[in-house]
């Protein structure tokens, strides 16, 4: 009964492909996030949703489109993958906006070849 689960854990794909990463939380939290950990190890926010409403879109290329069908799910779809998209993507949730005790998923390592 993982609190925040992401699938897949690993994703290897060719440039130009479209792929999705799924995230689900069973904590009853209102807010969900996507973070990207790049090669320099910084964790940078991409998006946040609160009760299915987009709150933060952190100047991410529009090839990245988040979708929140309900407050327990936040999926990330990436079109036309590029080499520079290779990174570890973390989903997280928190009880509400401005409650910073995030619970993170275990990450999805995306490799674009």
């Amino acid at each position, binding site marked *: 009964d993982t609190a*925040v689960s992401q699938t897949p854990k690993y994703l290897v794909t060719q440039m130009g492909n479209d792929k999705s990463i799924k995230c689900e939380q069973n904590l009853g939290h209102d*807010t969900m*996030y996507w*973070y990207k950990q790049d090669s*320099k*190890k*910084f*964790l*940078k*926010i991409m998006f*946040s949703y*609160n009760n299915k409403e987009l*709150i*933060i879109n*952190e100047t991410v290329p529009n090839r990245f489109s988040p979708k929140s069908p309900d407050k327990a799910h936040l999926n990330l779809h990436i079109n036309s993958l590029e080499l520079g998209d290779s990174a570890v993507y*973390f989903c*997280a949730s*928190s009880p509400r*906006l*401005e*409650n*910073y*005790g*995030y*619970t*993170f*998923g*275990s*990450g999805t390592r995306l490799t674009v070849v």
Partner: protein
Amino acid sequence: DQQVKQNSPSLSVQEGRISILNCDYTNSMFDYFLWYKKYPAEGPTFLISISSIKDKNEDGRFTVFLNKSAKHLSLHIVPSQPGDSAVYFCAASDNNQGGKLIFGQGTELSVKP
């Protein structure tokens, strides 16, 4: 412009001794600070936090100190245990940022028996 910096990529400490992990920030609007711990192939887990109205917060073996004038915080672990070996991320937020956390790049702590 990295607003949160952890200048030591790694730290090695003997079991039983004190571990001190440091973090510097540049944004004086930050009002809440957190430390997360990350094991390989797992997501970060919340460890301890401090509000900007305090200068110290303690939780068992973990203490976080905040020096607002120096824009510096530190995490002390006493006594250090081999199970503390992990990457530690410092994070900061301000109340006007919609729940966004800004992370440092992490410090890898190794506690040797």
